[in-house]
């Protein structure tokens, strides 16, 4: 296998670093949100913050689909998994996320048959191989993964497989961004727009962010140079007093998205009136559910789920951390009720979440780490 080394060139990164610094207005600070968990991972994995000007801070957004699933939904999923004759199939990174009654791993330890899969088609395969069992796919993710769930349901229908259903927790990115933008105490100057999601929905849906809210957004790829270039583009827009949607990831993202994938979603799923997000609360029209026509594949209709809402503790201030209003340590429950072992909010669930990272490594300043690694 070969890699796109042209997007991993440290020399170009150093050059960009200088150009970014030149674009920063002296005395001004900049806060940009990378919406997508994949970008957070790239930033973390390659240590990109070392290349950013001191005036630029990146805020990790709500785009980790695993972290935003609220406790109540996870409890419902575990309830389904614990019904007799059920095999629950889930993506790997969902396994450790805690609900009100523990995680999938804990439920598995109690005897539930929960299996890790890499795609919804793997779950369908399990259904084919186990005709006597009811196989439920724990569907999570933004518009990135929703098409493959939809295609799998269509495939199940075509093949006449009736022991397969989907517990649909797909969410949509735009309402979440809008919820953040609508907060009165917003402290963000621009957005690094999601890459994979945009490959499906295109760039148009973001235009209101630039036009109505006056914030630049650059749709960005997942290689380290992609992310640095997008920060450079946002800084350039700000320096010129512009706010536009730009597509840095044009090699993958068509401006109008992928109509085939969107069509698959709309055949099988429809918007929910509202959906609860961990840390952000209830957001209207922010998630997908199975349509009436595909009720036979809808685990929510097939199983009596308790549907009990487990409220985020009042003291949880994930929303403020996500909006860049609070630093992790300023949250009321940080480090006491909310720790990586007992996470309350989305920022503490993933190891790359702002709060988890700060809990583990906050005592080492960026400067101290930099000094330790310089020869």
């Amino acid at each position, binding site marked *: 296998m070969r890699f796109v080394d042209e997007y991993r060139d440290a020399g170009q990164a150093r050059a960009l670093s200088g150009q970014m610094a030149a674009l920063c207005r002296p005395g001004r600070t900049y806060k940009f949100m990378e919406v997508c968990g994949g970008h957070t991972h790239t930033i973390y994995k390659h240590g990109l913050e070392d290349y950013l000007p001191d005036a630029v801070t990146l805020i990790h957004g709500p785009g980790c*689909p695993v972290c935003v699933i609220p406790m109540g939904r996870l409890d419902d999923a575990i309830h389904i998994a614990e019904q007799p004759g059920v095999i629950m199939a889930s993506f790997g990174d969902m396994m450790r996320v805690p609900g009100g009654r523990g995680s999938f791993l804990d439920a598995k330890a109690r005897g539930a048959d929960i299996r890790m899969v890499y795609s919804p088609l793997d779950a369908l395969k399990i259904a084919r191989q186990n005709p006597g069992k009811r196989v439920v796919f724990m569907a999570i993710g933004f518009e990135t993964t929703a098409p493959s769930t939809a295609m799998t349901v269509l495939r199940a229908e075509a093949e006449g497989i009736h022991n397969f259903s989907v517990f649909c927790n797909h969410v949509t990115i735009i309402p979440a961004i809008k919820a953040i933008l609508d907060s009165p105490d917003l402290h963000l100057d621009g957005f690094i727009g999601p890459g994979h999601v945009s490959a499906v929905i295109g760039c148009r849906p973001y235009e209101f962010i630039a036009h109505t809210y006056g914030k630049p957004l650059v749709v960005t790829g997942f290689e380290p140079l992609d992310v640095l270039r997008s920060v450079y583009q946002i800084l350039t827009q700000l320096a010129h007093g512009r706010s536009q949607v730009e597509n840095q990831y044009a090699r993958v993202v068509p401006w109008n998205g992928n109509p085939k994938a969107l069509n698959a979603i709309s055949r099988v799923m429809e918007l929910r009136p509202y959906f609860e997000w961990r840390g952000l609360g209830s957001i209207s029209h922010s998630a997908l559910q199975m349509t009436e026509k595909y009720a036979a594949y809808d685990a929510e209709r097939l199983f009596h789920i308790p549907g009990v809402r487990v409220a985020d503790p009042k003291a949880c201030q994930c929303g403020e951390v996500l909006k860049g209003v609070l630093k992790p340590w300023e949250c009321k429950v940080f480090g006491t009720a909310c720790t990586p072992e007992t996470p309350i909010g989305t920022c503490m669930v993933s190891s790359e979440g702002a709060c988890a990272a700060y809990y583990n490594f906050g005592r080492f300043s960026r400067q101290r780490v930099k000094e330790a*690694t310089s020869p």
Partner: protein
Amino acid sequence: MNTDPSEETTAPWAETAVREAGHLHRPTREDQVLERIERARRGKARIREELITLAHGAGGKATHTLIEAVFLEAFRNPLLEPLADGAVTGDLALTTDAYVVKPLFFPGGDIGDLAINGTVNDLAMCGATPRHLTASFILEEGLPIADLRRITASMAAAARAADVHIVTGDTKVVENGKADGCYITTAGIGALDRGAALSAASVTPGDAVIVSGPIGDHGMTIMLARGELDLEAQLTSDTAPLHDLTARLLAACGDAVRCLRDATRGGVATVLNEIAAASRTCVVLDENAVPIRPQVRGACELLGIDPLYVACEGRMVAVVAPHRADAALDALRSHPLGADAALIGRAGDDPPGLVLLKTCFGGTRIVDLLVGDPLPRIC
């Protein structure tokens, strides 16, 4: 993780300095929050779960907590306390290990040679020459005798290659469905090499961190051999006995070798975190220098798994005093199992207990212990 109380006390001069500085610099709220976390971190290991989960077996934070809160709590004694690969008493090293692997047969090996090589390697990491092994089998009703013969044949071959004998053993059979075909536990004793004084705590700032070959081969091979991924790659397990390699290294460098660890469960990252914690040093790695086969790197990239956490069964990390680093590399590279040995980093002094990585891209990041298994990610 290591909670040696002697490390907690501050020197008197430092206390005075802190008191004086206190007049000028009151702790901020951020400092107080960090201090509270630090206190919780230093506190006694506590298990929150009521049941064992797979995370407890993955070699990361959950495993460490389990070992300290349950096993060490119950069995505490000076030989056990360092929690090394084996225990050293007088001229003898003693170790034991249990082997569960699915599938039983995989490209490059099977549970049989794994069970011999793993225990041979634990002895080798103590600086000992392996002598005798024991083997216990838990067999599942329905296991084909032909499979068992195949497993014992490869155990016999691996034992011959490592110049050890399996001198006693035990067999139990459990009902169908109560085990994955075959579980094996081996124990071993070895004779300590004179001159070897290996311990993770002896690692000192400036020391060279060396890995004996490409990392992650075994873990990725197993993951692909399970057939759950529609991924194919030319990969074989690296399972191999390392006693010859360690003997050659110790002969060349003697007591300049501070510490040897085989990078099994949890991979190189976990081993280095244990070394950094035990020695209160800061291990700084150079990502460019870490040898990884392109197939392993490719599969890891696709699955979103960090190869630093993927298990090896025939690779070790050696920490060597700086003046003997080149000699150590020469000694390792003179052996087929160490042909691709590489200097991957150094121990520094600050921040203590931490593993840092200088990335290929020129950035830096902290390489932490994982909580449980490295899980493929979707986002």
